[in-house]
């Protein structure tokens, strides 16, 4: 009673003083910012999905994604502990049996994610987490077969780990090979065997898929069907994928085998015009996602949308009346689950937020190429040759979209998107003849060229030297990386800059590019 009385007699200003420490130090810890679930954006709203993506180059066939209601009715993914996949010759003794003794362990509890660091850490876990255990690309019997590694020239770590897939333990004795993690396409085994997460990956995915189809004895019909699910775009002029399917099993398998590591025929893209696997390091500064700039990247919500869509939900898109896996709109919205890899569940918004935060946190490794006299003269050549116009420092991209040959930019796009109104003449196939094609290519960043390759959006050139070699413009050129399965030679056209430089200047320019 006395204390209460004493307190009531204290002057008001003294109570004010007690609040000062809060004003000075804030309400949260100094080294951590806290999140609540109310901070996590709801990303798949009908309103947001309407114009987030750019229209298809043939706008009548622009993607129509599933509705907000459909999306949020999908169950959220449970994230189990995963285990590394070893080359059979490197697998620790008893490892396989030990795996089968393990219980399922749920490793992500969203309610415990409080700080930015928590989210980034959870994001890394999700980055490595496979969303498919149905054998979407490869399955157990493939990775336990030594021939798989030889046939695909699979990169391994010094420990013999194949880092592009993981074992998922969903219960005692339930050991599944997990596919389709972000890490699958965006992890690079470097020359020294170290792993670089987020880089242009060197997963030979299409070679691996060809191996799986062949060794599984898949029928021609089955190979045609799965290839159609992945790449068919019957609305594209000339229907090149339809022609590939009609060419039969061997031609299709050859087309898969022709895609080099560093490129990957992701669903909606193509193995005829395969996209270079994108480098995610520095992606937070890029305004468009996908080589064709399909997804706008204006904020973290856009990145979250892109992750969700790209992790196979685009199989549920309609392109006009066409759906890649043969659904009708009635079937899609019937309420019955669709058991196709990646389409029967989804990441929660908190998981996507964590993934985006992790991807934003990726930073480049230390560049071993230090500036030199040669690279400094290359820097001047870079400016003189006008490279800076598109590859503008400090991002080394102007973050714009260039129309490809044959695509006429609609007037409205100039106000809506960042358009650099000329074509540099690179191969238009990807952006004009695929489900993800927009008619544009985004101007790529040149940061981190030293740890990347092959180059150009279609991964057709293995080395930077090839880019400045005028021989590549001739029809008798043999592309040093991706070469379509049905030709012996092919000109790699477009981006005809720096070709008239003398050899010394080319060397200097490349030396500079490798320092970025």
């Amino acid at each position: 009673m006395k204390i209460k009385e004493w307190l009531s007699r204290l002057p008001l200003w003294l109570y004010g003083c007690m609040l000062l420490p809060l004003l000075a130090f804030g309400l949260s810890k100094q080294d951590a910012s806290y999140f609540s679930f109310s901070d996590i954006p709801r990303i798949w709203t009908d309103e947001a999905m309407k114009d987030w993506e750019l229209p298809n180059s043939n706008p009548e066939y622009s993607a129509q994604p599933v509705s907000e209601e459909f999306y949020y009715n999908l169950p959220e993914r449970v994230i189990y502990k995963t285990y590394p996949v070893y080359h059979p010759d490197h697998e620790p003794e008893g490892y396989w049996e030990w795996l089968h003794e393990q219980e399922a362990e749920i490793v992500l509890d969203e309610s415990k994610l409080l700080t930015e660091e928590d989210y980034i850490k959870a994001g890394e876990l999700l980055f490595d987490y496979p969303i498919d255990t149905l054998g979407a690309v490869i399955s157990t019997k493939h990775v336990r077969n030594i021939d798989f590694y030889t046939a695909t020239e699979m990169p391994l770590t010094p420990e013999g780990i194949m880092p592009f897939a993981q074992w998922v333990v969903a219960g005692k004795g339930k050991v599944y090979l997990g596919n389709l993690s972000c890490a699958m396409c965006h992890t690079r085994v470097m020359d020294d065997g170290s792993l670089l997460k987020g880089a242009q990956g060197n997963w030979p995915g299409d070679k691996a898929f060809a191996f799986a189809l062949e060794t599984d004895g898949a029928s021609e019909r089955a190979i045609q069907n799965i290839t159609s699910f992945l790449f068919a775009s019957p609305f594209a002029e000339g229907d090149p994928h339809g022609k590939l399917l009609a060419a039969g099993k061997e031609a299709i398998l050859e087309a898969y085998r022709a895609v080099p590591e560093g490129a990957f025929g992701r669903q909606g893209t193509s193995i005829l015009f395969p996209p270079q696997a994108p480098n995610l390091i520095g992606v937070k500064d890029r305004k468009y996602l996908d080589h064709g700039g399909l997804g706008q990247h204006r904020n973290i919500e856009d990145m979250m949308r892109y992750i969700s869509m790209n992790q196979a939900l685009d199989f549920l898109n309609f392109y006009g009346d066409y759906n890649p896996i043969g659904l009708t709109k009635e079937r899609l919205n019937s309420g019955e689950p669709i058991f196709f890899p990646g389409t029967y569940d989804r990441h929660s918004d908190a998981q996507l937020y964590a993934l985006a935060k992790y991807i934003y946190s990726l930073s480049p490794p230390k560049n071993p190429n230090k500036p030199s006299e040669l690279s400094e003269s290359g820097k001047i050549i870079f400016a003189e040759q006008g490279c800076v116009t598109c590859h503008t420092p400090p991002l080394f991209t102007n973050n714009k979209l260039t129309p490809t040959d044959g695509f006429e930019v609609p007037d409205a796009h100039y106000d809506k998107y960042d358009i650099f109104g000329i074509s540099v003449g690179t191969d238009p196939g990807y952006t004009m003849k695929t489900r993800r094609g927009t008619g544009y290519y985004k101007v790529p960043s040149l940061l981190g060229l030293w740890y990347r390759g092959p180059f150009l959006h279609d991964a057709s050139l293995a080395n930077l030297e090839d880019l400045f070699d005028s021989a590549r413009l001739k029809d008798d050129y043999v592309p040093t990386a991706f070469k379509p399965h049905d030709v012996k030679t092919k000109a790699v056209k477009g981006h005809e800059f720096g070709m008239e430089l003398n050899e010394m200047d080319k060397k200097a320019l490349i030396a500079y590019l490798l320092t970025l």
Partner: protein
Amino acid sequence: MDIGYLDIVVAPWGSLRKCCVRRENFNYLSGKIDFRSRLLILTLIFFLIVPFLLSAQSFKPENPIQFKIKNAGITVDGLISDWEVMVDFDPKKLTQSSIRGKANPESIQTGIKLRDKHLHGREYFHIEKFSFISLESKSFRSKGKNAFIGIFELQIRGVKREIEIPFTLSQTGKQQMFKGEFTIDRLDYGLGEKSLVLSDEVRVVVEF
């Protein structure tokens, strides 16, 4: 490429001829002006026009318009080679003098063809919509011997702005040689957008 400047030269002829025709029609209809009077009018008109024509011929200068702009610390030199100018300049009659020029932005050259193509596009000169650049004098003042300052209206991409151009005149007989240099802010005319590497200022040199 013909950029149509001759229309400006021909226009006085056309309008005067119409005037003559109207007068003649009037003569024929009324029949009140005799042959001598008509001859006198025509002679007067002839002597009024000829000096104007002699002093204000449109011609294509030998020297292209030159411009310089800094891009990533490097000075990029460019040219616009297709241009015409019409000069009626008398240092003693500055108020009656005029200089007009018209340039075709399609003839721009910077040493990199694709860059030139980009400059043709809508982010820069947008030549499909704006087919010419024009420069038209408004007034002159002397700035010492053979040195002048002109106020010109420069039109690029449909944007008109008054600019001040100092220039020199060297005269050999009847031949006049002009040289002027000025700087513009490309953003004033909607030429591209703010850039981290490309300077806003463009230095222009005109010689004819």
